[in-house]
C-alpha cells in the first residue's frame, strides 16, 4: 500500500537549491543531500521500503533545506519520517540515554557535583567514547544543584498577585541544566505584569524524535497538549517557551511529524521574544537600564524555520545601549544530540567551523542566541560566553 500523507515531494522541481543550503552536504560527501535523500528517494521508498538509502541518517534535521526550497517541499520532514518509518530500529544504550533528558536530568541534578566532576574528567570521557560512542572532545553541560521546578515552588507563591497569567513551558534544559534562564523568564514576565503558570510538563520530545523513539515522543506530546491546554487561564492566553526547539516541536513537529492534533494549543504558543515584543509594542515596557555591550547574535536553525528570528532581533534592538552585530546565518552543527555521537562528531564540528570563524571575526563581548544546544557548541568551540536574549533583557530590567 502506498502511503500518501506527505506528497509534497511531488512539488519538487529538482532545482538542487536545497542541497546548496544543506550544511551537512557541504562538509561531507557521505551525505548526498536533501534533494536526493528527500523527494528523490521518497518516490522509491513509498513503493518499496527496502529501497531505503541509509545515508539519510546523516540528516541533522536543521531544516535549512525547507527554508531554501522555492517549491514548499517539506524535505526535512520527509527525511525524518523515512528514518523511523522505514529503517529497522536497533537498540542503542547511548541513544536511549541521550534522548531521556528527563531521566538523565533527574539523576544529574540529584548528584550534580559528582556528575559534573566526572563528565569533565578525561578518563571518563575516554570511557564514554569507548562504551557509548560519545566523542572524547565533547564538553557536557553541567547539571544544576537545584532544579528550576524546585525553585519555582517558592516563586509560585507570588504569581497570584498578577491578574493576567502566562503559561511557561520551560523544557528539560532549563529545569536540570540552566535554571537561571527560567528565573530570568519569570523576572521578565513579572516585570511585564504577568504571573507565571507552569504545568506538569514532560520533555517536548525533540531528542526522542531525533533518536527514533517515536511512540514515546507521541505519548509525551499527547501529555503536553493535554496539560498545557488545561492550564490556559482563558482562550487567548499564551503559552511561552524560551527554547527554540521546544517551540518548534509544540507548534510544528507535533502535527507534522508525530501526527498529533495540537489545535487546542497551536494558536496560543509563542516563542518568548515574540511575546515580549508584542507587549513592548502595546506600550507595556518596563524600565530598562542601558547595557553597554557589543554582542554578536547567532540565529538558531529551528528559530529560523519558525520565522521567529526577526522578533528576537527586534527585541534586542529595544535594549538601550546594546550594540548588536547580526552574524551571517550559519548552522552551529550540534543539532541537539547529533553532535554527541561519535559517528557525526567530525561532521558537526566541520559544519560549525564557519560560524566559529565569523564569531571570532566579529569579536563581540559575548554571543547571544536562543538555543541551548547552540550555546554548548559555541562555548565549546570559541572563547565566548553565550547568553540567552531573555537573560540579557532580564539584566536590563531594573
Amino acid at each position, binding site marked *: 500500500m502506498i502511503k500518501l500523507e506527505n506528497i509534497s515531494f511531488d512539488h519538487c522541481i529538482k*532545482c*538542487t*537549491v536545497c*542541497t*546548496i*543550503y544543506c550544511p551537512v552536504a*557541504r562538509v561531507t*560527501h*557521505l551525505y*548526498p543531500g536533501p534533494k536526493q535523500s528527500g523527494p528523490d528517494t521518497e518516490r522509491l521508498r513509498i513503493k518499496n521500503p527496502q529501497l531505503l538509502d541509509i*545515508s539519510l541518517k546523516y540528516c541533522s534535521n536543521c531544516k535549512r533545506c*525547507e*527554508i*531554501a*526550497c*522555492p*517549491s*514548499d517541499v517539506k524535505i526535512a520532514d520527509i527525511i525524518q519520517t523515512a528514518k523511523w518509518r522505514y529503517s529497522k530500529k536497533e537498540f542503542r544504550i547511548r541513544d536511549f540515554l541521550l534522548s531521556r533528558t528527563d531521566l538523565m536530568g533527574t539523576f544529574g541534578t540529584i548528584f550534580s557535583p559528582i556528575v559534573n566532576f566526572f563528565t569533565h574528567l578525561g578518563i571518563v570521557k575516554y570511557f564514554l567514547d569507548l562504551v557509548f560512542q560519545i566523542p572524547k572532545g565533547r564538553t557536557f553541560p553541567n547539571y544544576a544543584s537545584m532544579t528550576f521546578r524546585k525553585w519555582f515552588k517558592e516563586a509560585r507563591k507570588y504569581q497570584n498577585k498578577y491578574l493576567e497569567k502566562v503559561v511557561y513551558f520551560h523544557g528539560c534544559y532549563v529545569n536540570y541544566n540552566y535554571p537561571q534562564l527560567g528565573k530570568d523568564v519569570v523576572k521578565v514576565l513579572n516585570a511585564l505584569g504577568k504571573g507565571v503558570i507552569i504545568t506538569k510538563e514532560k520533555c517536548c520530545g525533540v531528542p526522542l524524535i531525533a533518536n527514533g523513539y517515536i511512540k514515546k515522543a507521541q505519548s509525551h506530546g499527547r501529555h503536553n497538549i493535554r496539560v498545557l491546554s488545561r492550564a490556559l487561564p482563558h482562550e487567548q492566553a499564551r503559552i511561552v517557551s524560551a527554547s527554540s526547539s521546544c517551540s518548534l516541536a509544540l507548534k510544528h513537529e507535533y502535527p507534522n511529524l508525530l501526527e498529533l492534533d495540537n489545535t487546542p494549543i497551536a*494558536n496560543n504558543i509563542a516563542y518568548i521574544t*515574540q511575546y515580549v*515584543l*508584542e507587549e513592548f*509594542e502595546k506600550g507595556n515596557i518596563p524600565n530598562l537600564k542601558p547595557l553597554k555591550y557589543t554582542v554578536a547574535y547567532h540565529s538558531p536553525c529551528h528559530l*529560523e*524555520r*519558525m*520565522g*521567529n*528570528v*526577526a*522578533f528576537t*532581533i*527586534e527585541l534586542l534592538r529595544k535594549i538601550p545601549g546594546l550594540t548588536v552585530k*547580526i552574524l*551571517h*546565518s550559519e548552522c552551529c552543527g550540534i543539532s541537539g544530540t547529533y553532535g554527541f555521537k561519535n559517528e557525526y562528531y567530525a561532521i558537526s564540528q566541520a559544519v560549525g567551523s564557519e560560524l566559529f570563524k565569523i564569531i571570532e571575526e566579529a569579536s563581540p563581548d559575548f554571543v547571544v542566541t536562543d538555543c541551548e544546544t547552540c550555546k554548548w557548541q559555541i562555548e565549546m568551540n570559541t572563547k565566548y560566553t553565550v547568553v540567552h536574549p531573555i537573560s540579557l533583557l532580564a539584566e536590563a530590567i531594573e
Partner: protein
Amino acid sequence: MKFDCIIIGGGISGLTAGIRCVKEGLHTAIISSGMSALHFSSGSIDVLGYINNKVVYKPFEALDTLTGTIAQHPYAKCGKALIVEALQFFKQECETQNVYLFDNENLNHFHVTALGTLKPTYFSQRSVFNEDVYNRFKSMKKIVIVNFEGYRDFHPQLAAAQLSKHALFANCEIIAKSIDMPQLQDLTRHPHEYRSIDIARIFENEENVYRIADAIRLAAEGADFVVIPAFMGIHNFNQIHNILQSRTRLLIYEIPTLPPSILGLRIDNALKSRFAQLGGVYIAGDKVVRAESSNDVVQAVYTANHPENPLEAKFYILSTGSFFSGGMISEFNNMYEPVFKLKLHYEPERNKWYSPQFFYSNSHPFLEYGVVTDENLRPYDSKNNIIQNVYCSGAILAHYNPIREGCGSGVAISTAYKAANQIISLYKLMR
C-alpha cells in the same frame, strides 16, 4: 512587529528595494518564502537585449523604441534617467561586497551560455566580462573549453560546436577538453553525481585550486584563453580567479552553469549581506498569506508561520516574482495574485496563455501577464481602486517579456529603485 517598509519577496528586486530603503533610514523588513530566480539566472544583468528579434547593441538608445511601442512597459514608467541611476546604484552596492560588475561603456556585450550560444547582456561579473577578453577577442586564435570529469550538466563539445558557428569566432580554433582529477574523486561516493555546487566547493579549498590550475594549464596548451563552467567559488571567487590566472598565465573566463547557478548565488549573497549589514531585517522561509486593509490602505500582512501576528508597515513593496516563484497562481481557467488579490493583466482563455511551439521566437504570452499598475507602480485591487501604500516591482509586473526582450534583471532593478524612491520621498514628507 512594526516597520516603515515591508518588502514581500527577496529576489533581486526585493533586495535592491530593501537596500535602497534601509540606506535612507527606513526600518525595513524583507519576507521571502524560498530562494529566488537568482539561483537559476546567469548572474549577468540584462537590460535590453533584443527588439523585434534583433540583437540590441545600444540598450539606452533602444529603450525609446521599446517604450514607444509598449506604452505600459515598466521601463516607460521608470524613464531612462532613473534606469541609468538604478543600474549604477546596483553596481555600487554589489561592489561593497566584492562583486564587481563590468559594463561595456553603456553598450551591451556578449556572454557565452552553457550551450555555447552568445547572449547580449549589460553587466557581467569580472570573471565573465573584462577588458582583457574584450581586447584580445579579435586576435584570438585558440580557445579551450574545459569541463571537469564527473560534472554531467555541461557538454563542452556541444558548446564548442555551437560557438564555432558564430561569425565572431570564424577564424578561431575552439577545442573541448575534459579534466580528470583523481584527487577530487576521493571526495565523493558517486563521482558521476557532481553538481555545480559540489565542484564550486572543491574550488573554495585553496589547496585544490593550485592542483586545478596545473590541470588547466596542461589541458590548454597554446590557447589564448580558457573557458570553464562557473565553479570558482561562491565566497572567495576573486581570489580563486586571481590564483588560477596567475598560475596558468592564461585568461580564464567563466560561463554560467545549469541551476544552481554559482554566478547568480554570488549576487544573491552579496545583496543579502549588504541588506543585513545596513540593518535590514530579512525573514527567510516564511510566506505572506494575506493582508488586511481599510480604505485602499494596507494595514498589515500575515504570514504562514504567524497567522495571528500582524506585521505592520507604512509602505509595502510586492516583489514576489512570477508564476514560478508563486507571485502569481494559475488555475485551470484563471489566474490570481495571492497576497493582495490584485488586478491582473491576462487572457482568460487558457489556450491563449502559451504558444504552440515551445521555442517560439516571439516567446509565450503568459510571460507578459502580471499585475497592472499606475505610473507610480501602485497596483489596483479587484474593484479597480488604487491601493495607496503598495508598490510592485520585478517579475510580478505585467506588460513586458523578460525572454523576448532580454530585460529581466534590468526591469527588476529599475522598478525596485523607482518603488523605493516613491516610498522614501513620501516617508520624508511624513516626518
